[in-house]
């Protein structure tokens, strides 16, 4: 075998190693959503209190759509107080928080809302159509919708105060709907 071949065969391992290094370092849960930058899918569902709620009605505001479930411990339990506080702090500035309860029992969801004293509207997605429309993998996932009704940020995992403030402040700073 020529000297060239003696070197080329071990070198052929390098691209394979590079591919594996890339694959194993990437977070398999970190899948980019094709929905970022696109219009937020419309939905109209009844809240847990029985009032009708449609996303369209909040066009022109910054809408935070949060997918949760009462069995989603601990992440949903961590973010519920954060969402409630942020909603109280921002509701007078053209920001709406909408909770979407998915894959859940109604009683358990109602207890969750009571326990955390949530005052922002929460709807239940019984058939899973809204979850699939938003390409939801699991809970919690949160979508920040700008005043034009476009999804701008998808946040996977519990929303922290920092994430909420930074994202909502940025969307509020943008020019309002012409």
């Amino acid at each position, binding site marked *: 075998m020529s000297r060239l071949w003696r070197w080329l065969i071990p070198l052929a391992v390098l691209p394979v190693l590079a591919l594996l290094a890339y694959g194993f370092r990437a977070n398999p849960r970190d899948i980019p959503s*094709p929905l970022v930058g696109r219009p937020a899918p419309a939905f109209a569902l009844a809240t847990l209190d029985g009032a009708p709620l449609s996303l369209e009605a909040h066009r022109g505001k910054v809408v935070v759509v949060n997918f949760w479930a009462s069995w989603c411990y601990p992440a949903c339990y961590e973010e519920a107080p954060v969402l409630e506080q942020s909603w109280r702090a921002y509701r007078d500035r053209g920001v709406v928080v909408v909770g979407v309860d998915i894959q859940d029992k109604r009683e358990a969801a109602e207890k969750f809302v009571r326990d955390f004293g949530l005052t922002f509207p929460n709807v239940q997605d019984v058939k*899973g159509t809204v979850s699939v429309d938003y390409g939801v993998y699991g809970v919690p996932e949160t979508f920040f919708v700008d005043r034009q009704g476009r999804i701008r940020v998808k946040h996977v995992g519990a929303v922290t105060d920092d994430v909420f403030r930074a994202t909502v402040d940025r969307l509020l700073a943008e020019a309002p709907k012409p």
Partner: protein
Amino acid sequence: MSRARLRRLAAPVLVLLVGVSAFAQPPASPVSEDAVHEVAAQLRCVVCQSLSVADSPSEMASQMRGIIRERLAAGERPAEVIQYFVDRYGEWILLAPRRHGFNWLVWLFPLVAVATGFTLVAVIVRRWTRRRREGGPTPVNVDPAMSERIRREMERGA
């Protein structure tokens, strides 16, 4: 009751009946489980590891099968239903990557690897067999004097 009045009453009743029957009856074109399964088998269950929507017992997968059934019943073709999921989850949702661009690597690399392996084995086997055919064991270079001495000692016996 006059006929005109009867007709005026009949209209809302008819609307009500049609409305109720629309809820009570299954969709106009019933979708076979096979058709739902065929689409579901191509989609990744988003909350599972390595399971299709067809095979997963999770609630999410069950809801997805419901959505597939509804969309097929509404007259969508299977390819359109799959595209609906791809638009929302990206191509990640497909169990088999589509054959274009970078994805070809996934499809062709195993074939290329197997073909390379077979070629390598064939080359090596041919090299070995050729050497053997070319005259038994490899000749060893022993100088004539030495070989003469070995022969003599062998004949003499140990």
